[in-house]
């Protein structure tokens, strides 16, 4: 699995962090998403897909 985030789309909702805190974080100043792990281990795959889907800005792309 490979993840990319489009920072300019991110609205800082933090929904991804709530769902998959080991894969996503937010910057302190503007709340923009930080990708902690672009190739998360299998144990994180479900949470990562769920995060991509709840992101209200459709800013998270999951491949594989």
């Amino acid at each position, binding site marked *: 699995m490979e993840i990319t985030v489009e920072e300019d789309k991110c*609205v*800082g909702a933090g929904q991804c962090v709530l769902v998959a805190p080991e894969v996503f974080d937010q910057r302190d100043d503007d709340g923009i998403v930080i990708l902690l792990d672009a190739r998360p281990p299998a144990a994180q795959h479900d949470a990562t897909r*769920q995060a991509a889907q709840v992101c209200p800005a459709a800013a998270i792309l999951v491949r594989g």
Partner: protein
Amino acid sequence: MTNRRVVVVGASAAGLATAEALRRFGHDGPLVLIGEETHPPYDRPPLSKQLLSGAWHPDKLALTGVGDLELRLGAEAIELDVDARQVRLDDGSRVGYDDLVVATGARARRLPGTDGIGGVHVLRTLDDALALREALTAKPHLLVVGGGFVGAEAAAVARELGCPVTLVTDIAQPMGDVLGTELGAMLAGLHREHGVVVHTGAAVEEIVHERGRASGVRVKGGTTLEAGLILVGIGAQPNVEWLGGSGLTLGNGVECDETLYAGHGVWAAGDVASWPDPRTGVRHRIEHRTNAGEQGIAVARNLLAGRAAATAFTTVPYVWSDQYDRKIQIYGSTRGADDIRVVEGSTGEGRLIALYAKNGVVSAAVGINMIRALRGYRALVADAAPWTSVIEGAA
């Protein structure tokens, strides 16, 4: 179960989320997504922000990610027959289903008697946004009717594009019904600082027009405010008319049970769905982007689990709005708050976090330009923390 034929009507945020989650949770049977708009599915929040300002091309709004489904665009569902389990489309064809998901969203409310008058716009679809953007290029005087988020965002964009802008709302402060007077006043101040003429407590009675084109609005009391371009931003209404006579319960939206089941093999998700909060029994219909995604996922899960195993949908509603350099974020439900406290920052600093109380518990947390910090307050809303604990903590 998995080879059942699932039909989803409405190809936007909620419909796509449902379809994607159905596949992710293992539905490998036929899946049909029907949408009235001819554009490939796209995301609405940027319409009043980056799309309107011209910063983004429409391609950037594309909602993708679901393969392996039958997508029927430009097809309007006009009738539902729950006995035959068929949806009738505007071209006369019928689509059969085992399970149906209604995700037909909402449409912009219009002012009566404005059909066919030039220069009067609403903002709900990509076509609406492109038409408004086009109209703004001549830098006309824009008058926004309504004090909601969409209108306020469009007002901010129009100012940034150099148009004179007037905002007219019948409430005491724009967004004041949602945010309370203090925060509403702060945002009204922000718009005034940016040169918007804000009229509050002014109900628009009619659009004034000459030779088929709008020239202004008349507000209660008889005053006429002149403007060549009018954006009517007075909210949205759920698209339920096509379900009339189907046997589904329609009120303010499709009335579902706690699990988003509407009866007769039909589920609903997104702006069109109304469901009772399992904690309070109070019905809600939420017009937020995040809710559309969450309900789509919940419907997919419940539909595949079957009715007996379906679980109640619970959520902490989340919505945001961008105006100038301010990002407003709301967790929970602010309406009808009994008390509001600013717990971090202040209106003077232009950045703050405010908590809202209803019936003795924290009902909402609102942040203005305090993005990451606000997330820490979400738990208070999710847990309905006692208000006393909050104000004692803050004192």
